[in-house]
């Protein structure tokens, strides 16, 4: 493993998840203040801000911060993973010392929230996808999957099994929205949303937020539970799901994952814990394959054989994921938070001896991706 340049020294979610009587910017602030407190710092220590959903200037003003570095990368749910990557580079370049990354989203209540973006009139997306009845992620993110299932000779139950295993993890997490056990039959009998996707194969919708504090690896030694950032990756492909070059694999996933593993100098066998953004049940299948944990078409069997379940060799989405834990719209921050908790050893469903955790995110409908490798050790 290569030497780490930066570390997460503070991490927290909003005090509540679910239905929260707060505006979106207050969700950011609630999470930010929790994370700053977790790091043992004060707001005046922050000199860098990275955020999406709200602007850096709204955060700076609301929290009373005067930053010397900002990042407003906003490519959907994996933006916060990219913020970790960019913050690492900025700290190494000396542009700032202590970065606050915030997410907050009033996904359920919609209080002072932008909501799902409406395509720009005349954009290629608006001209060549919107006229055909797309209504948001459930009818867009889902479009490639029949081709994937056909290519690999899989049935819809491959999607159901993802949801079942993640509910097992959620059952161990008191903060999870849905904790009751479910069976493949329960998933297959749930209401059809967008064939082949049924209700229990789709993420839930909640309010919530999370924040991270990132500083240099050298300085991180002075903090109580640093989680080192050892590898990062990012890429984008297309805003139009119909124009992905291959419906059975995500180019952005592959490029981001490859960069993250290469920059970390680790192999797949080194990974003790994995988070793969699961807005819908097919994403962990694509993620496991595109990150190289499984060969093409083998992720469904890998999950069915309980490799990612409690007690398995590659525990995945251990908070319950977007399918059962929470999903405010841009879920990436919660994947990061669970990776940090697992490396710190304080997760609700703690995996024994997590040295390396990988968090993998998606933005838009396979439009963007970012991957972060965390470790307990700096090198």
């Amino acid at each position, binding site marked *: 493993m290569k030497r780490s340049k930066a570390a997460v020294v503070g991490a927290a979610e909003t005090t509540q998840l679910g239905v929260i009587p707060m505006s979106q910017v207050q969700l950011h602030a609630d999470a930010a203040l929790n994370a700053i407190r977790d790091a043992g710092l004060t707001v005046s220590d922050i000199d860098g801000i990275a955020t999406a959903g709200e602007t850096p200037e709204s955060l700076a003003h609301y929290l009373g911060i005067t930053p010397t570095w900002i990042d407003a990368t906003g490519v959907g749910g994996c933006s916060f993973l990219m913020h970790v990557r960019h913050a690492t580079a900025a700290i190494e370049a000396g542009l700032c010392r202590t970065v606050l990354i915030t997410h907050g989203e009033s996904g359920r209540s919609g209080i002072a929230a932008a909501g799902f973006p409406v395509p720009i*009139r*005349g954009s*290629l997306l*608006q*001209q*060549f*996808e*919107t*006229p*055909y*009845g*797309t*209504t948001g992620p*459930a*009818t867009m993110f*889902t*479009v*490639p*999957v*029949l*081709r994937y299932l*056909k290519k690999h000779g899989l049935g819809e139950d491959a999607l159901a099994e993802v949801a079942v295993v993640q509910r097992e993890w959620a059952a161990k997490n008191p903060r999870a929205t849905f904790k009751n056990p479910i069976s493949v039959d329960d998933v297959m009998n749930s*209401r*059809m*949303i*967008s*064939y*082949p*996707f049924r209700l229990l194969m789709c993420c839930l919708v909640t309010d919530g937020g999370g924040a991270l504090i990132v500083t240099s690896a050298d300085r991180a030694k002075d903090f109580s539970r640093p989680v080192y950032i050892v590898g990062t990756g990012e890429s984008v492909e297309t805003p*139009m799901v*119909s*124009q992905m070059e291959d*419906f059975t694999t995500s180019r952005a996933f592959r490029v981001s994952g490859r960069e993250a593993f290469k920059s970390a100098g680790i192999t797949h066998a080194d990974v003790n814990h994995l988070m793969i953004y699961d807005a819908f049940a097919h994403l962990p299948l694509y993620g496991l394959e595109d990150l190289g944990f499984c060969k093409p078409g083998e992720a469904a069997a890998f999950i069915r054989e309980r490799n990612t379940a409690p007690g398995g060799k590659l525990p995945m989405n251990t908070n319950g994921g977007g399918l059962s834990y929470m999903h405010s719209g841009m879920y990436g921050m919660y994947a990061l938070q669970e990776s940090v908790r697992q490396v710190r050893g304080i997760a609700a469903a703690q995996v024994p001896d997590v040295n390396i955790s990988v968090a993998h995110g998606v933005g838009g409908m396979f439009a963007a991706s970012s991957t972060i490798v965390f470790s307990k050790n700096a090198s």
Partner: protein
Amino acid sequence: MKDQTRPLPVPTPETAHFWEGTRHGELRLQRCTHCAHAYFPPRPFCPKCSSAEIETFVASGRASLYSYVISHRPIPGFEAPYAIAVVELKEGPRMMTNIVDCAQTPEALSLDMPLEVAFAKQNEEITLPLFKPLGV
């Protein structure tokens, strides 16, 4: 499928030829004369080699069903459940569309089934390229 109120495309200078084509019953694609790459959606240069030496041509209108979902959520302009499909044109590019003259069921919509374009006039300016089973 009720078409009165579905969202309609807003053409731009770069896509005007495409929407003029569908108005005239033609599915117009673009091809690079430098590297022969046929592409969609429209742009005045080749997305593969960046050459501006490109030509517009009329595609065959033949395609096959590449992937789809069937949305069960009622929205204006559509009668749920309705399929949102991606077809692969004979010339190579893929495009999102709807499948008409066909039951909107997994049984009727089988991947790789042959399709042909069916132009659906929405108003004086916009005609959408929908697809139907070949020979129907």
